[in-house]
């Protein structure tokens, strides 16, 4: 894939700025939650705790913000191990997730990424 031009990179940064200017994505923890839910569609509260390394209160706060924005839906499901709180991504959340992927794709590749690229 050809590296993006300087114009495309500037456009990408502008787009990224727009995305993150919105209240619900003004936190890297919430961006992380959105990316993970975009890939996995549903994750449990414990899995999200392990993912974000947040405390329970902080995670609750982030999830409530995302739910209030209509990007995710929280619910309790019953499993063999007992009731579990899970977060599902909504249609609106999937649109936002695709926007994040698009921004990620348009970001210029840094040297560190080339070094860290898995074989």
């Amino acid at each position, binding site marked *: *894939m050809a590296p993006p031009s300087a114009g495309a990179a500037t456009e*990408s*940064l502008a787009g*990224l*700025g727009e995305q*993150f*200017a919105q*209240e619900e*994505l*003004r*936190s*890297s*923890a919430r*961006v*992380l939650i959105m*990316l*993970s839910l*975009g*890939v*996995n*569609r549903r*994750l449990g509260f*414990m*899995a999200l*705790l*392990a*993912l*974000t*390394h*947040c*405390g329970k*209160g*902080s995670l609750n*706060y*982030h999830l409530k913000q995302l739910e209030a924005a209509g990007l995710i839906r929280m619910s309790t499901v019953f499993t063999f191990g007992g009731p579990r709180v899970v977060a599902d991504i909504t249609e609106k959340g999937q649109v936002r997730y695709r926007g*994040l*992927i698009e*921004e*990620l*794709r348009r*970001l210029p*590749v*840094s040297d*560190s*990424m080339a070094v*860290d*690229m*898995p*074989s």
Partner: protein
Amino acid sequence: MISGTQDGRSALQVEAAGDQNRSEPVDQRIAPDELRESARRTLQFGRGVLRRRWSAYYAVWGLAVTCYFLLPDLLGGTSIPFVTPLQGTALFVGLLLGVTLGALTVSLVVFGLAERTFTLRLATYRSNPFRSRDRALRYAIVAALVLGVVILSTRSGFAALLAVDTILVVLTLFLTRHLGRAFHPVPIEGWLASCSFFVAAAVSFVSLLVFRSETAHLWAWLGGILVWFGCAAYARFVPVGNEVPT
């Protein structure tokens, strides 16, 4: 190094550390590199989730292939009381269809997850090692499946068994392709599952074409299935580091 803070810590680390001292997290606009770092972390975390999902795939296809090989003998070799031959055939077809539909459903879920992971990886690392191989593999898969189905519907005996082998090899090729797209690197159970089916297929082809033996063919595939069940148990129950909690 991740930009975003003066001391070099990422915003994620700051937020996590902030939990110890603050009652409510502080929102801050994140830098572009933070997005990439989040994507990288999502991929690392998703690896554990994926391994658990693939364990269901190994188990359900192991069960399906077991049914394909054993159900005809089990149902044909025994006479079930109060069941007419027609009902027996309906039971056989129903069981096979049920198992196949279940396996296909699990496959769709797992392959969907694998594709979404691959899309994120592609956006993060800008590297697609599969582009050149994808088209050739797609043609090979379609050709082998058509050939297998045609032989299976027109021939019986050794030819039919060879067709079954061909279809299973194609399924394994498909599995290997998706494993490669989903994982970097492919975990040990993924390699074992792929290799066991390729070895089973090789042994089966040789036994059918050279020795004309159906027994070796059956044992080869049963060995492959056992490895798949082992892979399913390993991926499900063995701790996978800090990738995902149970």
